[in-house]
Each structure stands twice: as C-alpha cells, then as structure tokens.
C-alpha cells in the first residue's frame, strides 16, 4: 500500500527542551495506526506536531498526495478529533459539521445541509442534529466531532484519545465506527490512545513512546508486541502491570 504519512528524524519538545527525539515512522494508506504510550509520554504532543499545531524542534513530517498541515485561511487536508471533541458550544451539532463545508466548498445551503446530515447519519446522530453539544452525552459529542472531522472527506483522520472518558459500551461502539471509517471509507486513521481493548480491536500497526527513553521503544502490530516483545516497558504496558512486576 502506498505511504500517506512519513515522519523522519523528528524531535519534539517545548522551549528547546527535547521530549522525544529521532521519531521516524510511516503510515500506509487505509491503515489504522496507533501511537501508544503511558500518560505523559508525549503522544498528544507528537499528534499536535503531526497536524501542524506545534512546530517540531527538528525533522520533518511529510504527507504524500495531500496538502500540508492546516494553517489559518487554508483548506484543511485532514480531519482531527480532539480529546474533548472541541465542538463549538454555541452551535448545534449540525452547525458544527456545516462550518467547514460552508467555509471550504461552493455547495449551496441545501447541499451543504445534505452532506452534513449524511455525516451525522454515519455516526448515528441525525436525530440530534439540532441539539447543542451541552445537550448530548460525552460519547455523542465524540461522534459529532468525528462527523465534523469527516466533513470535507479527508483522506486521513487524526484522533486524540477517542475513547477517553467513555464507558466500555460507548467505547466499543466508537471502535466499530473507526473500523467502519477505515474499511468502508478507506480513510487512513492515526490515533493516540492508551486504551488496550481499542488498540487490539482497531489498530493495524503501532508505535510506543517512552519519555524516559526519549523516543520510540517499540513498533509493529499490537498483538505481536504484546506477545513477543522483549522490552519490559512494552510488556508492562500491554499487561497493565507496573514495570517491576511485568518481567
């Protein structure tokens, strides 16, 4: 499969303090790629760097076949689901999804609403189109965030901790939606997560970050890593045991 994202020699951090160094990986088209690691391992910082919200200290992020990371007043080339969904509270779910369509397409009002309703229908929220984000549950806000991320049919989606704060059933439904998007729409998905059930269910490939190691400590299919890794930190993560007891 062709590569859609290539990361080379990436160093990320704050104010010249390097958190992670020599980050390099490729994401294939149509793949669900997971960025794993414990809390504070730099997963979200890496994601923010990939989508252009933060400049890397060095290295490069290259997208093949799509535009550069979103900047103000340029059409976005990928969709992002933020950890808290980040829906605009004064707009209904429908208006949130309409926003990028109104800004970046020449669709008439009726056509834009048809597309936006289609996105909401895809995530099972068409009956809540005229509700405000504060009037729906956390799981529904996440799904609405996915609908908005999908608005412009991006070839690649970035999800920051999609299952965070959700009950197991809602998290499982979200996993099914991710699989539908990847399989049905052939969208490449890069997700940051530390939810083991989701990782095993949806991810094709993954990398694991470790702050103390300053970079990637493992890469491969999640099942392979969980069963065959020799790294104690990797085993501790997948077995959900503190480091000293995982070996």
């Amino acid at each position, binding site marked *: 499969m062709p590569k859609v994202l290539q990361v080379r020699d990436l160093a990320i951090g704050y104010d010249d303090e390097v958190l992670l160094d020599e980050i390099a990986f490729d994401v294939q088209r149509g793949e669900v790629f997971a960025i794993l690691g414990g809390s504070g391992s730099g997963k979200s910082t890496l994601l923010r760097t990939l989508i252009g919200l933060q400049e890397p200290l060095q290295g490069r992020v290259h997208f093949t076949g799509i535009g550069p990371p979103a900047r103000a007043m340029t059409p976005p080339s990928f969709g992002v689901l933020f950890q808290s969904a980040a829906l605009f509270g004064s707009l209904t779910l429908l208006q949130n999804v309409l926003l990028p369509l109104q800004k970046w397409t020449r669709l*008439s009002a009726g056509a834009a609403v048809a597309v936006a309703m289609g996105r909401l229908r895809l995530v099972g929220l068409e009956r809540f189109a005229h509700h405000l984000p*504060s009037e729906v549950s956390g799981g529904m806000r996440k799904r609405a965030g996915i609908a908005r991320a999908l608005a412009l049919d991006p070839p690649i989606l970035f999800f920051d901790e999609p299952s965070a704060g959700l009950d197991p059933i809602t998290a499982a439904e979200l996993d099914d939606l991710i699989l539908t998007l990847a399989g049905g729409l052939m969208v490449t998905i890069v997700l940051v997560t530390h939810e083991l059930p989701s990782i095993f269910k949806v991810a094709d490939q993954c990398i694991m970050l470790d702050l103390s190691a300053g970079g990637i400590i493992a890469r491969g299919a999640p099942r392979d890593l969980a069963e065959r890794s020799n790294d104690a930190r990797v085993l501790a993560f997948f077995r959900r045991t503190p480091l000293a007891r995982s070996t």
Partner: protein
Amino acid sequence: MQAPGFSLTSKVDDGGSLRLHLSGRVTLVDGAALWRQLHTTGSQNGATEIDVGGIERLDGGAAALLTAFAAKRSAAGATMRLVGARGETAKLLGLYDCSRLGDCEHPIPKQPGLLVDIGEFTHSAIRTTKAILAFGGDLVVGMVHAVRQPRTVHLTDLGSLIERAGSDGIPIVLLINFLVGAILGLQGAIQLHRFGGDYFLANLVGLSIVRELGPLMTAILVTGRSGAAYAAELGTMTVNEEIDALRTLGQDPQRFLVFPRVLALTLVLPILTILGDLIGTLGGLAIAVTYLQQPSVVYLQSLQQSVGLDDVGTGLLKSVAFAVAIGLISCQRGLATRGGAAGVGRSTTSAVVVVLFVIIALDAVFTWIFSMLGW
C-alpha cells in the same frame, strides 16, 4: 471554472421513466455541480433511476448528496432508485443510505415569534427572581450556621478577594467619582451663577455625592469589576464540574465560595464609597475654584455646614445593601450557569444587568424610606 469530473446524462425510456446515467469521478469537490445537475435533470414526477455503474470514484460527500437527493425525491412522491452500484460505490452508498432509518428529512425548528419571546422573557424573569430570593434565603441560613461554626467558613481567600475588589479598584473609583463631582459641579455652577447662588454649590455637590451619587457610582463600578468577575469565575467552575466536585467533597459552595465574596464586598464597598465621596466633593471644589473663582475655604466651609454625619451614614447604609446585592446576585448567576462558554457569557451579562437594576431599585427604596424618617 474547471469542468466537473463526472458526467450526468438523462434518457426517458419507452415506459416514460427517466433514467439518469452518472459516471466518472464523483467527489465532494464537484458537489455543487452534482447537486445542481441532479435537481435540473432529475426532478420530474414519476419513476426515476440513477445508474451509478459508471462511477470510477465516489467519496463520502458525493454519496451523501446522492442518497439525500433520492430521499428528497421519494418524499416528494416520486420513485427514485440508485441502481448498478458495485464494489466500493455500493459500500459507500450503503453507509450513507437513510431509507432504513425512516424519515431522512429533519425540519429545522421554527424561530419563535415576538409574543413567544415576550412570554419566555417574563417567565425567565420570574424564575430568576425566585432563584435569587431562594439563594438569598440559603445565604441567611448558611450565615446562621457560620456564626455557630465559624471554622466551616472558608476565609483563606478573603484577603485576596478584598485586595481585588478593594485596593485594585481604588484608582477607577477615585477617577470616576472625581469626574462625576466635577460634572455635577459644572452643571450646578452654571445654573446657580445665574441666580447669584454660587455659595450653594458645595451644598448641591456635597449632598448629591454623599447621599446618592457616591454610593451609586461606586456600586456600579464594583458591579462591573467584581460582580462580573464573580459571575464568570463561578460560572466557569460550574461548567467545569468543579462545583459538583466541591459538593462530592462534602463542601458547601455557599460557605466555600459565596460567603467570602459577599463578606469581602461588604467590607470593601463602604470604604470605597467614603473615598468616592471625598474625591467627588473635591471634583466640585475644582469647579468652584476654577469656574466660579470661589476661594476654596468658602467652598469647604459651606460643605462642612451642609453635609452632616447623618448624610454620610445614609450613603454608607446604602453601600452595605448594595454590596450584599452585588455579591449575592453575581454568585447566584454564576452558580446557575448552564451551557459551556456561551452560558458563562450569558450568566455574566445577566449578573451585571440584574445587579444594576436591583441597586437602582434599592436606591429608590432607601431614598423614600430616609425621606419618610426625616434622615
């Protein structure tokens, strides 16, 4: 303008049914053209088929448009079918198909009319008034408990609250009250001079400032500074579930958050009012000296003779009442916030508007009472 990547042709068969043939690359980029052409070509009564077998590439946006158009035609009584779909096209059309979910049309809620708006406003005003009165009652009950168990009152923040409401507000209070005194003095001087009443300028400015304008202007300034801040602060805490967390920790938000703020304002506003009174009368002095060429000692003597301790006392009584109103209403509005960031904005605005109304109303009531009592 670039030609769209798709082609939509139409043919009427022998039975009179319209058959559309869609081929090429059908993507959201050409969504506007697709929607337009579907409506132009495919909007006839009776049976219509759209053959999508010739589609080379279909994306989600275009799939949403096709299924929405089909649903729209079906709802209008025409028979509309998408035929010939295979592979990825069939999968995508299946994902966006809404026929299995029943009604695909979701009417936009109608905007309420003027009468409904008036009714809702009245209902909301009554609800707000009841909520504030209930909150005030809770505050009184809480104060009784606080007197019995003073350790349950969280006074750690009292110092910083007094600083923010009091000392940080002194410059603006002094400036505004000086200007108000000067403006009043100038307007009064112009009129009094016509009748040879220059000597009474100090009476006019002194009594107006000390009894009315000093307490009122200072309260208005504190409303804008501290009242709005309290509403926003507590509103943000409410939407972030920090108030809920406080309750689960066994803390009473009234004693933890509201008391210190009301107490800070009650201590601070009378002091600010006295400062405002002093500087306001000096504003009148500046006009007396510069406009009326009146010796300052004459103004000050007249001031001393006209303004008594009872006048100052009535002003300070008002300022205490204003302080309780500002603290109570601002905190209540903040704790009643619903609906995220927009809700915080609404409750802050509501706090300022309601407080301003209440302190003007209180001022009128006090003025009437004092006049009845001969104070």
